[in-house]
Structure formats: structure tokens, C-alpha cells
């Protein structure tokens, strides 16, 4: 089913492309030796190169190139062995040199693709147009002084990747799925932390609308949207606005807009009488960047297993449902945790415990997988006790809660609390006989054909044995005497 928005004149499709700015994880900046780390006192992570002092020159950071190539490989994209840096010229207070160094005409990464999965299980492929490296700008602060804005250049020159998608996205949900998937891939690769709150990942959203079967209409660009939720909202809001404009007989102007989440609207950024003319040209301070195929190959060999591959392997290797596998590969750390638990054990049982009880516990305690109160080894140890029938599933839940609280191992808890499963047929038979004697009326009813009562007897026996009985053996013993 195509997603559409109903207007006065009928249904409208939406067309969306995303430009994601992702901060490259590196120690130093793209063209200077100043620290690229977040925070820091104002204007301390700044070299004279970043501040654009006369005679200062850029020198390219090799790791940033490697990170861009890794990302390109992760997006199954073409790596351009020759790329170039251009200058994008414009004046702004937080742009010290008056130009941003960016790869306009010859990006390091060409076409690629990202596979996304929607809530109903639909799989779609979103095309990647290109990925290029560029410099971040500094920060202007407008609230400190009545007449002046203050400038901090700590971010100026930090390396960014701009990842541009094809206009393949057709609904807000796809936009959200695309961004989550992109973030997941970047995090797997270790090339960007994907932290949208700190601004290390932000999106420009290109939106247009059209009637089914039409070519593309004019698009608007919503700048600098800093959460996935806002991206999804802004698409809907902007598409609705455009539909109104068209249906009222107007024209949508190609322009840059801002999304205001508090008012749930987009508004035009004052378009100045002189539209931007960036006067791109190759940066004469930098020569063409040439990378060797051997280096690209080596970087590829060093890549971690990517989420899609891992998901498919989990399905195949562990026999777990695709949905569970998708959940488990959401983050590298979760996947690693799961694999440690699943290795050599009942992998489906492991998946149930991780996605069920463990996730629930993490949620409740506000922790993440990396500081989980129960380690993978500990959870595995508990599952071992289930598998060798030391404890049954019900007791396992109790043990799990105890592990969460005390941090003790499952074995220690079973020992301390005497929770070892009873497999002694004599004890079970005795309990069965006792339950039957005390519920003679129910036995009559059962024998008279009330099969549903079987569960009652199991429950009574388990209760009598403080839950420690092996349920299968209880079933068997009951069947025999009933």
C-alpha cells in the first residue's frame, strides 16, 4: 500500500531524500591537529589553522579518509580511488576562512544502498547517491549579550561525512527506518557515534509531493533536523503544507525551511535577495586525493560484520526468527552479548531470555547492555542449569531476579535457596498421591471427562513441591495414576 496524504483534490504521494551529516570519529580534525573531541573550554580545541589565520594551510587527516571509506564499504557503495576537495565559499561568523572545504564535484564514495525493514516486515532498498568528507563549522551563541553574538570555534574543522540518499523515501516511517538503519551501520563501523542530541548526526530533509504517476515536483529542504522523531514529523507537516499550496492554486518555491517542533510547522528561512552562490572550485591548497585499491581492500578486511549480515547469520546459525534476529543485532553490543549466551546452548532459549527477561530488566533498571547487571556468562550459566534440568523454567525466573538483585551466580543462588529441581520419582509420586487423596472430588470429575482439570493437578503438585519438581516428570506421574 502506498502511503498517501488525502487533500481536497485527492491523494498525494510524498517524495523524500535525506542528507545526513555524520561526525567522523577521529582524534583530531579533518585538516588540523587540534582535538576533535566534544566539549572543552571555548576556543581551546582550536589551532591557528582552524581559526583561518593568514598563511595557515590544511593537511588531511588519514584516519578521516579511512573512516569515510569504511562507511562507504558499509553502505555497499562504490569507493572512488580519486577524489578532490573543493572550496564552498560563503561568509558566516562561524566559518573562519570564508569557505568550507568539501568534496563537491568528486566525492570519495559514490552510489550505494541501504536496506530497511518496516513494521509490517516489508523490506525496501534506499539508494545512496554519494558520501563526501567536509569540515564542520564553529558555533555562534546569541544569548550572552544584548548586542553581540559570541563565536566558539571548537567545532570548526571537525570532520563530517555528508551521506546523501536518493529521493527513494515515500513515507515518514521509511525515513525513520532509514535513519535508524544508517545510524546502526555507522555505529557498527565505529565511524560515527550517531548521537543526534549532541549533534554528531543531523539531517537535512528534502520533501516534495506529487499525484500518483507524476514526475517530481519542486522540493523544499528542511535544514538541520536533530532527531528521528522530528524528521518524521517534519515530513508530514511539510508535505501537508505543500499540498495546501498546490491545491490553493499556488506554486511551491524551492527554498530552505526550518522545522519548529514546538509549533509543529516549517517556516521559510528568510531568503535574501541574493541567493547563495557558493562559487565552488578545487581547493588549490590541496592536491587530488588518490587512494590505493590495496588500502581499500585492507580496510574492507578489517570491517566488522554488518547488521544485515549478522541478522541473516543469526537466523541461519541459531535458528531464531528473523524478527528476533533483527532485535538482537540492533546494537553490536547486544549481538555480542547474545552470541556469548547462545554459543553452545539452546540458541532459541537464549534469544527468548535476552529479548524478554534481560531487556525487561535493563529497562526497569535504566541500564544498557554494556553495563548490564547480569553478564552474558552469568546468564549462560543459568541457562546451563535449565538445560541440565537442575532447575526448571519457573525457578529460572526466580533465580534470574535474584541474580539481578544480588549479582550472585545462578548456581550459588540455587544452592543457597535449595532450588534444585526434584527429579526423584519417589518424591514426585508421593506428592501426586497426596494431591489426589486431598482432591478426590476433582479426581472423579477428571475421570468423568473434565480434561481441563489436568492443569490443576500439575499446579497442586508443583505447589506442594515448592515449584522445584521437574514439570515433565510431574506430568508423567499424573498421567500414570489418573
Amino acid at each position, binding site marked *: 500500500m502506498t502511503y498517501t496524504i488525502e487533500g481536497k483534490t485527492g491523494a498525494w504521494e510524498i517524495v523524500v531524500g535525506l542528507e545526513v551529516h555524520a561526525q567522523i570519529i577521529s*582524534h583530531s580534525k579533518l585538516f588540523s591537529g587540534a582535538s576533535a573531541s566534544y566539549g572543552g573550554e*571555548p576556543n*581551546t580545541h582550536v589551532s591557528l589553522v582552524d581559526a583561518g589565520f593568514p598563511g595557515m594551510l590544511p593537511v588531511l*587527516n*588519514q584516519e578521516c579518509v579511512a573512516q569515510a571509506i569504511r562507511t562507504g564499504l558499509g553502505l555497499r557503495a562504490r569507493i572512488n580511488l580519486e577524489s578532490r576537495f573543493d572550496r564552498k565559499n560563503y561568509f558566516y561568523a562561524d566559518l573562519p576562512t570564508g569557505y568550507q572545504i568539501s568534496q563537491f564535484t568528486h566525492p570519495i564514495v559514490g552510489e550505494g544502498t541501504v536496506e530497511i525493514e518496516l513494521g509490517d516486515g516489508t523490506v525496501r532498498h534506499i539508494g545512496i547517491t554519494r558520501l563526501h568528507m567536509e569540515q564542520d563549522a564553529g558555533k555562534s551563541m546569541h544569548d550572552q549579550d544584548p548586542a553581540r*553574538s559570541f563565536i*566558539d570555534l571548537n567545532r570548526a574543522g571537525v570532520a563530517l561525512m555528508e551521506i546523501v540518499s536518493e529521493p527513494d523515501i515515500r513515507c515518514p516511517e521509511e525515513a525513520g527506518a532509514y535513519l535508524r538503519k544508517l545510524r546502526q551501520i555507522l555505529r557498527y563501523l565505529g565511524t560515527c557515534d550517531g548521537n543526534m542530541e549532541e549533534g554528531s548526526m543531523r539531517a537535512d530533509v528534502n520533501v516534495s509531493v506529487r499525484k500518483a504517476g507524476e514526475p517530481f515536483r519542486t522540493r523544499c529542504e528542511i535544514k538541520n533536523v536533530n532527531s528521528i522523531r522530528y524528521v518524521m514529523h517534519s515530513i508530514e507537516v511539510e508535505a501537508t503544507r505543500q499540498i495546501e499550496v498546490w491545491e490553493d492554486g499556488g506554486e511551491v518555491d524551492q527554498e530552505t525551511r526550518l522545522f519548529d517542533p514546538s509549533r509543529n510547522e516549517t517556516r521559510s528561512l528568510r531568503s535574501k535577495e*541574493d541567493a547563495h*552562490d557558493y562559487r565552488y572550485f578545487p581547493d588549490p591548497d590541496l592536491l587530488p586525493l588518490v587512494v590505493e585499491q590495496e588500502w581499500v581492500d585492507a580496510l574492507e578486511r578489517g570491517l566488522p560484520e554488518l547488521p544485515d549480515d549478522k541478522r541473516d547469520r543469526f537466523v541461519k546459525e541459531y535458528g531464531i526468527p528473523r524478527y528476533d534476529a533483527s532485535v538482537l543485532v540492533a546494537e553490536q553490543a547486544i549481538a555480542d552479548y547474545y552470541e556469548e549466551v547462545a554459543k553452545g546452548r539452546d540458541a532459541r532459549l537464549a534469544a527468548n531470555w535476552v529479548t524478554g527477561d534481560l531487556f525487561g530488566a535493563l529497562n526497569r533498571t535504566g541500564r544498557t547492555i554494556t553495563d548490564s547487571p547480569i553478564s552474558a556468562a552469568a546468564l549462560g550459566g543459568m541457562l546451563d542449569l535449565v538445560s541440565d534440568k537442575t532447575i526448571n523454567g519457573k525457578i529460572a525466573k526466580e533465580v534470574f531476579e535474584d541474580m539481578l538483585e544480588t549479582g550472585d551466580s545462578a548456581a550459588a543462588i540455587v544452592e543457597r535457596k535449595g532450588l534444585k529441581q526434584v527429579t526423584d520419582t519417589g518424591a514426585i509420586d508421593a506428592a501426586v498421591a497426596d494431591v489426589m487423596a486431598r482432591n478426590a472430588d476433582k479426581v472423579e470429575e477428571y475421570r468423568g471427562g473434565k480434561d481441563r482439570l489436568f492443569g490443576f493437578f500439575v499446579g497442586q503438585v508443583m505447589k506442594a513441591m515448592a515449584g522445584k519438581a521437574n514439570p515433565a516428570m510431574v506430568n508423567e506421574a499424573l498421567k500414570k495414576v489418573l
Partner: protein
Amino acid sequence: MSLDPATVRRIARLARIGIDESDVPALQGELNGILGWVEQLNEVDVEGVPPMVGTGHAALRTRPDVVTDGNCRDAVLSNAPDGVGPFYTVPKVVE
């Protein structure tokens, strides 16, 4: 190609060089003089000729990803025309 007064004003604006209306005719004349003179390049056949990129002596070098610079705020701010504390300043920008 020749520049009209509107284009002179537009490029002055793009270059952030303030000009008075009275400057326009002279600038227009000078720039058109230069542009007229460089028109001679139209005689040159550049079919299939690649543009010069770099100087052909070397490919781009890279540096290792090590923090070697920064933490020099005094130097960074040493020539600021109007610094306040650790910041540069500009007339208030309304966004």
C-alpha cells in the same frame, strides 16, 4: 560577456565589499575592460584538454590522526578586534 550594473552590485555583495552607487560605473568599466581582454582565450581550442589540477608534482599527502595542535587560546584570540572572555564576537546575528 559583459557586466551590467546589477551584476556589479551582486558580486560586490557576494564578496562582502561595500560599494556606493557612485562606485558602480567605474567598477563596471574596469571589470568589463579586464573581461573583454580575457575573451582572447576563446581563440584557444581546449577540446579534450584536462584542467590543470595541482601542479602534477605530487599526490595529496595525509597526516596521522594525532592531536598535535590547539590548546593555544591566547594565540587564537591574540589579534581579535573585539574579544569577550574566551570568545570572538560579531554584531548580533538574528536567525
